[in-house]
């Protein structure tokens, strides 16, 4: 890592960062001082807080409301080497009509696919569905590629019609203390995103400590991320409640500092309605109700939708439902 390297002054993010940090040159040293000056996170206290929020009991009307909100927040995701056009089209159809037995069921927020599937997804969803197309980019999931490749990857997806780009940070650079590289990469990717919203995947499972999660969150927001996202879904642990809590504190405090609102997306490992509702309670009580909207909070998930639909049917019909009553293009037997 090079301590004397400076950021590209052409980037807006850099000048804003200089203002926020109160420095004339954005160096790695300046970033380090700033990030390491953030309050620490006590692991036990943080996890106790998350567990406490997890004991909220959401019943009846609140539950129905929360289930619909959660459905509307899903980035319905398929990120497999085995993805086919058919698989993506099937997922798009599911997004457009999540529960054929109940057309009042809300649609998920977006379809999240690899860059080469953006065109297919775009086409399948049509122009007016309200369901966005999100593409993972920047050599997802490892991020181990040259910057040129990462930028090309991003541009490709944007050109193909992606509304949202889910990039990964260079965790190696972050863990070695080269915050400026991480900053520059995010800022550069943001620049080529154009109108697409940028979600910055921090891969919190590799960052390990909550202090790192907090620093990475602030670094991502400083560099211009529109969303901070926990995970690729390829690494365990993925989206945990305490990690999401730290990120919600970060966006809350960032708005206090800058007036700008940044979104949060936990991704990976959230499979049940019960879990999803815990996250919504956490959003409500940590960041506040301004984030209770799919413009500001998303779930990166695949199987979660079906469980939410099951619970929704249960609430509507009063009887427990089963997998046979959840129409799906790639049915699961997991529940």
């Amino acid at each position, binding site marked *: 890592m090079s301590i004397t390297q400076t950021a590209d002054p052409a980037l807006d993010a850099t000048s804003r960062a200089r203002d926020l940090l109160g420095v004339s040159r954005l160096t790695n040293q300046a970033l380090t001082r700033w990030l390491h000056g953030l309050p620490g996170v*006590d*692991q*036990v*206290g943080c*996890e106790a807080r998350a567990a406490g929020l997890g004991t909220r009991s959401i019943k009846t009307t609140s539950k129905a409301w929360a289930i619909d909100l959660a459905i509307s927040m899903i980035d319905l995701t398929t990120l497999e080497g085995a993805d086919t056009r058919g698989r993506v089209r099937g997922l798009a159809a599911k997004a457009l009509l999540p529960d054929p037995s109940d057309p009042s069921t809300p649609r998920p927020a977006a379809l999240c696919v690899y860059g080469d599937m953006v065109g297919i997804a775009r086409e399948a969803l049509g122009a007016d569905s309200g369901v966005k197309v999100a593409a993972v980019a920047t050599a997802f999931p490892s991020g181990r590629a040259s910057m040129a490749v990462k930028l090309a990857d991003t541009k490709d997806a944007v050109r193909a019609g992606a509304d949202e780009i889910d990039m990964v940070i260079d965790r190696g650079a972050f863990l070695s203390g080269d915050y400026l590289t991480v900053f520059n990469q995010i800022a550069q990717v943001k620049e080529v995103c154009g109108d697409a919203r940028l979600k910055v995947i921090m891969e919190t499972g590799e960052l*390990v*400590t*909550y202090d790192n999660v907090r620093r990475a969150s602030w670094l991502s927001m400083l560099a211009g991320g529109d969303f901070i996202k926990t995970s690729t879904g390829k690494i365990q642990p993925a989206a945990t409640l305490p990690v999401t809590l730290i990120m919600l504190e970060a966006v809350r405090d960032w708005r206090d500092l800058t007036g700008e609102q940044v979104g949060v997306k936990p991704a990976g490992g959230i499979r049940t309605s019960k879990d999803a509702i815990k996250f919504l309670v956490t959003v409500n009580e940590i960041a506040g109700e301004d984030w209770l909207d799919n413009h500001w909070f998303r779930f990166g998930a695949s199987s979660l939708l079906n469980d939410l639909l099951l619970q929704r049917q249960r609430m509507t019909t009063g009887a427990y439902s089963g997998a046979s009553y959840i129409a799906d293009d790639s049915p699961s037997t997991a529940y």
Partner: protein
Amino acid sequence: MARVDVKKTYKLYIGGKFPRSESGRSYEVYAARKGEFLANAAQGSRKDARDAVTAARAAQPAWAGATAYNRGQVLYRVAEVMEARRPQLVQEVRDAEGLTAAAAEAVVSQAIDRWVWYAGWSDKYVQILGGLNPVAGPYFNISASEPTGVVAVLAPQESSLLGLVSVIAPVIVSGNAVVVVTSADRPLPAITLAECLATSDVPGGVVNIITGKASEIAPWLASHRDVNAIDLAGAAGADGVDWGALEEASAENLKRVLRPAGTGADAVEPDWTATPDLSRLTAFLETKTVWHPKGR
């Protein structure tokens, strides 16, 4: 012509100095066996007790803050000085308690040995009494003993040195400061012990010794709000001292009270030659428990 010897003047011991009683009073002390006049002792007053508490309070934090190893060495040094003054102590104990020379020698030996025994506890009792508590959660949790603070001690009326040592050493070894009211009739070994303390390394104010009548001084110590604990051992056999009343007065600031030995309302002086246990030490300790999360 025989030399005119220089008689010793016995004074109080407060804050590391040897003042006379602020009251200006002294009283005559006589030998136990034949009743001959031994010396004049200062007759301490409530104001002397008050000054002693002030001195003790001032000295206590630094004494408690000294390392346990250091406190142990300081106390051991007292034993060395006592050994050096053995003839004087033997004579005083003999006079005070009416013992034979051999018996007085034995008492002084045991007193010095007891002092050494307690000195050795300075850096050990915390290990015996405290330690890690295995709480059911991600926390480091440890309990350790701390000194209570300022302790008032009514020293035994009968056992003028062994009893005295047995009530002072366990109090100060843990870092308490002490205000001692001596035996009324047998105060002289206490003042010589004070001289041992003054010429050793015990910081001034850690031990304060007041000669005089417990009946006069003890009520003021029992009701004193800046005294954290009181040892009523010396209530046994003390004229005009009602230990129950002292305990009652002690309740005002919830002093820790070490009652005199005995059953019911009776107070008796225990056999100080018996092997002690840790109870006189633990009576003037507080247990502090500290929690901290364990996380990454």
